[in-house]
C-alpha cells in the first residue's frame, strides 16, 4: 500500500515549504561569513538543517538533493581545515543555490545542470571520491529519461486518449462494486474467486489512472512556447498607438496543457489589446502623472495546486467607477452592481468607461463566456492599473477528488483544497448551541455540517462517537472544518464545467459521471468556505469503528506528512508532534495506540521520549518504533535497550516494513 498520488503531492508541497527553512539556516551562516566571522552555533544549526534536508530528500527519492546536502554536511564538518578561508561564504552560497535549484527541479521532475555542476565542484573542494554517475535528481529518473526519444503525435489524438482513459477509468470501480454485491450472495468457493476478481479490478482502476496521468503529461508544454510571442505583439501594437510598453512574461516555464494554451490565446490577446488601447496612457500623460514614460504589462502564469492561474496586469489608468455606473444607467443595468460585475456587462463601450476617450469592458462579456466555456473563471481586481485573473482547474484533463456522503447523497471535493481528513472523538470537540467546535492553537473553530451549507436534510442516526471532518483550505489562507457523514473514495475524474442552471454561481466546480453511472457533482471549495449555514441544529453521523491512533514524532513536517499519508491509507488514524515534549502533551491528551518516533529532534529527542514513555506506568505498554537515520550498531543497541519495539532506518526505509512492524505490534 503506497500513499496516494494526492497525498504525495501534498507531501511535495510541504517539502517545497520546509526546505526553505533549511536554506534560511544556510543563508544565516553565509551572512555571518560575509561579515568576516562565524560562530559554532550557527555552523551547527546549518549542519543540522542539511541533515534534516538530507533525510527528507531520501524519503522522497530526490537523490541529488540528498547527496548535495550530504556533501554540504561534510563541507561544514571540515570547515576549519579547508584552504582559502576567504571563500567560505562563496562555498555556502554555491551550496545554497545548488540545493535550491535541485529541489525546484526535482519537484518538477527535472534535472538541474547548475546543481549537478556544483555537486561535482563540492566534491573537488571536500576532496570526495568522484562517483561515476551523478545521483538521480528525482524519483523515476532513469537513463532512459535522459535519452528520451521523440515522436510526433497529433494533439487531438492525445486528447482522445486522455478522454478515453477517463471513461475507462470509472469502469473498474463499477466492476468492483458489482463484484462486491455478487460476493454477498455467493457461497464460500465462489467468494474466494470473486475476491480475486475484485483485486484485479482494483489493480485495473489503478493502472488506468496512471495511464491517464501519463497521457496528460504528454500534453504539457511550457507556457512560453505559445505566449512568448505576445511580447513582440505588445511592442508592435503599442508602437502603432504611439505608446511604449515593457511586456513581462512571468512563469514562462510553467507547464500548461497545449489545447488550453491554444484556446487561451484569443482571450489573452483581447485583454492585452484592451490594456494597450485603453489602459496604458500616452507617454506624455504618464510623465505628467509622475509615472515612468514606458508602461508595463505583465503576464503571469502560475500553478497553485490543481489550479492554473493566468494573470494579466497593467500599470495604466484603471477603471473609473463613476463612468462605469453612468454607462450602466444608460444601458438600463443596475448601476449599484459591484464594479467586478459591471466590467463584464455587454455594451459598456470603451469610450464611456474611462475618461480621456479610453475605456474597458469592450467584449469582456465574450471573454468571460470563453473562459467559462474552457471550464475556468475570470475576475477583475482594481489596483494601480487593472488586473485580470483567469483560473482553471485541471478538471478537463483529470482532477483528483474526494467523494463524501452528506444528506444520504454523494458529493465530491477537489483534493487540492482538502488539507486533511480528521476523525475527531467527541472528547476532542466542544458542543455549543449551534453545533460542534474544535479548539486548536487557542482558536475556536466551528465544525459545519456540509448538509447545512447545502441546505439538505440531515440524517437522524443517533449521537456519533466520532465526527468525520474534512478540513478545507484555500490558497488565500481561508479554511473551514466541514463535517460529512462519511468519506468514501479518492478518485481521478474528468470534469465538465456546468453552466446555466438555477443554482448559485460558483457552487459547482464541474460534473462527471460516477462509476455507478449517475451524474455527480464536484463542489467548489471557495463556495463552501464562504457559504453561510442554512439550518441550525447539530448534525448527527453514524458511529464508525475506531481505528488505532498512531503518534508520529519527527521534526520534519514532510516526513510526518508522508508517514501519516501512508498510515492513513492503511486505515490508521494519526496524530503528529514535532519533538519529544510535544509528543508528551499528545500522549497526555489522547489515547495513543503506538508511537513512531525520529531520534534526533530538538528539545527532547526520541531516546528521551522513549525513556519517559517507559517510565510512566500508563504509557509503559505503548509500542514504540524508532525511525531514524542513526545507523551505527551501538545507536541501534541503545534504542532497543531503552525499550524500543522496533528500530527502522530511514536509509533503507520501506513502507511495507513499517506497516508490517505496526501490524505486528498492534
Amino acid at each position: 500500500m503506497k500513499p496516494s498520488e494526492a497525498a504525495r503531492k501534498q507531501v511535495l508541497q510541504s517539502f517545497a515549504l520546509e526546505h526553505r527553512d533549511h536554506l534560511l539556516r544556510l543563508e544565516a551562516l553565509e551572512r555571518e561569513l560575509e561579515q568576516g566571522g562565524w560562530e559554532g552555533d550557527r555552523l551547527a544549526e546549518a549542519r543540522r538543517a542539511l541533515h534534516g534536508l538530507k533525510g527528507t530528500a531520501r524519503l522522497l527519492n530526490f537523490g541529488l538533493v540528498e547527496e548535495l546536502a550530504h556533501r554540504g554536511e561534510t563541507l561544514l564538518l571540515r570547515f576549519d581545515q579547508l584552504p582559502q578561508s576567504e571563500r567560505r561564504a562563496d562555498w555556502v552560497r554555491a551550496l545554497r543555490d545548488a540545493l535550491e535549484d535541485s529541489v525546484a527541479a526535482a519537484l518538477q521532475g527535472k534535472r538541474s545542470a547548475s546543481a549537478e555542476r556544483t555537486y561535482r565542484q563540492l566534491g573537488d573542494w571536500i576532496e570526495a571520491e568522484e562517483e561515476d554517475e551523478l545521483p538521480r535528481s528525482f524519483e523515476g529518473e532513469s537513463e532512459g529519461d535522459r535519452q528520451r526519444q521523440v515522436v510526433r503525435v497529433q494533439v487531438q489524438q492525445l486528447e482522445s486518449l486522455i478522454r478515453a482513459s477517463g471513461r475507462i477509468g470509472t469502469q473498474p470501480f463499477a466492476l468492483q462494486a458489482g463484484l462486491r454485491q455478487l460476493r454477498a450472495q455467493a457461497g464460500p468457493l465462489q467468494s474466494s474467486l470473486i475476491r480475486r476478481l475484485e483485486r484485479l479490478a482494483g489493480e485495473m482502476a489503478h493502472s488506468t489512472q496512471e495511464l491517464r496521468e501519463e497521457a496528460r503529461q504528454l500534453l504539457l508544454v511550457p507556457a512560453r512556447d505559445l505566449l512568448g510571442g505576445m511580447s513582440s505583439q505588445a511592442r508592435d501594437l503599442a508602437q502603432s498607438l504611439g505608446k511604449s510598453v515593457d511586456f513581462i512574461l512571468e512563469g514562462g516555464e510553467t507547464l500548461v496543457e497545449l489545447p488550453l494554451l491554444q484556446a487561451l490565446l484569443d482571450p489573452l490577446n483581447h485583454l492585452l489589446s484592451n490594456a494597450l488601447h485603453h489602459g496604458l496612457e500616452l507617454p506624455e500623460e504618464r510623465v505628467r502623472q509622475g509615472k515612468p514614460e514606458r508602461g508595463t504589462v505583465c503576464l503571469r502564469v502560475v500553478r497553485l495546486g490543481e489550479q492554473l492561474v493566468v494573470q494579466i496586469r497593467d500599470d495604466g489608468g484603471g477603471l473609473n467607477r463613476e463612468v462605469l455606473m453612468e454607462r450602466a444607467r444608460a444601458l438600463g443595468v443596475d448601476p449599484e452592481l459591484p464594479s467586478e460585475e459591471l466590467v463584464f456587462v455587454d455594451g459598456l463601450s470603451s469610450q464611456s468607461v474611462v475618461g480621456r476617450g479610453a475605456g474597458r469592458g469592450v467584449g469582456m462579456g465574450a471573454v468571460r463566456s470563453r473562459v467559462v466555456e474552457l471550464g475556468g473563471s475570470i475576475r477583475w481586481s482594481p489596483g494601480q492599473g487593472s488586473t485580470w485573473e483567469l483560473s482553471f482547474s485541471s478538471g478537463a484533463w483529470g482532477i483528483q477528488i474526494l467523494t463524501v456522503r452528506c444528506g444520504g447523497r454523494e458529493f465530491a471535493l477537489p483534493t487540492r483544497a482538502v488539507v486533511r481528513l480528521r476523525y475527531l472523538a467527541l472528547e476532542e470537540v466542544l458542543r455549543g448551541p449551534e453545533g460542534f467546535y474544535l479548539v486548536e492553537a487557542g482558536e475556536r473553530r466551528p465544525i459545519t455540517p456540509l448538509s447545512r451549507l447545502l441546505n439538505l436534510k440531515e440524517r437522524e442516526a443517533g449521537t456519533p462517537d466520532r465526527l468525520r471532518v474534512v478540513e478545507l483550505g484555500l490558497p488565500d489562507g481561508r479554511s473551514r472544518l466541514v463535517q460529512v457523514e462519511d468519506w468514501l473514495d479518492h478518485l481521478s475524474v474528468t470534469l465538465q464545467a456546468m453552466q446555466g442552471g438555477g443554482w448559485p454561481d460558483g457552487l459547482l466546480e464541474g460534473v462527471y459521471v460516477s462509476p455507478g453511472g449517475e451524474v455527480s457533482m464536484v463542489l467548489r471549495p471557495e463556495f463552501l468556505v464562504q457559504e453561510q449555514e442554512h439550518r441550525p441544529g447539530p448534525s448527527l453521523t453514524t458511529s464508525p469503528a475506531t481505528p488505532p491512533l498512531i503518534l508520529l514524532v519527527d521534526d520534519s513536517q514532510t516526513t510526518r506528512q508522508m508517514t501519516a499519508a501512508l498510515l492513513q491509507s492503511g486505515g490508521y488514524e494519526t496524530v503528529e508532534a514535532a519533538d519529544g515534549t510535544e509528543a508528551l502533551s499528545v500522549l497526555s491528551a489522547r489515547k495513543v495506540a503506538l508511537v513512531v518516533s525520529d531520534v534526533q529532534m530538538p528539545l527532547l529527542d526520541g531516546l528521551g521520549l522513549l525513556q519517559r514513555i517507559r517510565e510512566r506506568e500508563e504509557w509503559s505498554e505503548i509500542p514504540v518504533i524508532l525511525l531514524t537515520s542513526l545507523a551505527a550498531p551501538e545507536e541501534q543497541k541503545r534504542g532497543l535497550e531503552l525499550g524500543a519495539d522496533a528500530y527502522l532506518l530511514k536509509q533503507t526505509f520501506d513502507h511495507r516494513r513499517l506497516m508490517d512492524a505496526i501490524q505486528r505490534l498492534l
Partner: protein
Amino acid sequence: MFDPEEILDRRTRELAAPVVAGQELRPPSHILVSTGQGRFAIPIGELQGATRQKITPVPLSPPSWLGITHYMESFWPVRWLGVPEGELEEGLTAPYFVLFLRGRKLGLAVERHLGLIALGDEHGREDGPLAQGLEYLRVAWTLSDGTLVLEVQS
C-alpha cells in the same frame, strides 16, 4: 446515409404517444405535454430530443430547477416547464420526461407527454412570455381546449 437529425426526430416521435386522432394527414409539428399548470404544445423542430431521464438534483436550487442530467454525451441543466404540485423528494429523482431544447442547452421536464399533433399557423398570435425565467418560451396562441401553443425565441 446516416443522418443524426433524422434519427433524433424519429426518436422524439417514437417516444411520444400515438398521433392524436384526426391529425394523420399532416406531418406532426408539435409535441403535446402536460404539467401542473396545464397542457402545452411545443414545436418538434425546436427540440434536440425528448426522453425519460434520471435527474440529479443540485442543492440550493430554486424549486423550479430539477437538476442535471446526462444526455447524448453531454450534461444538461433541467428545469420544470411547469412546477408540479407537492414537495419534491431528496436524492436522485425518478426518471422524468424531458424535452431537450435545441441550441439552448436546457432540458424542460414535464409530468406527462400526450402525443404529437399537427398544427398550422392559422391562429392569431398572442405572443406573451410563458413565465418568469422562461422568457424565451412565448405563448403563440391557445387552442380551444386550453392547450397553450408555445414558440421558442432564439
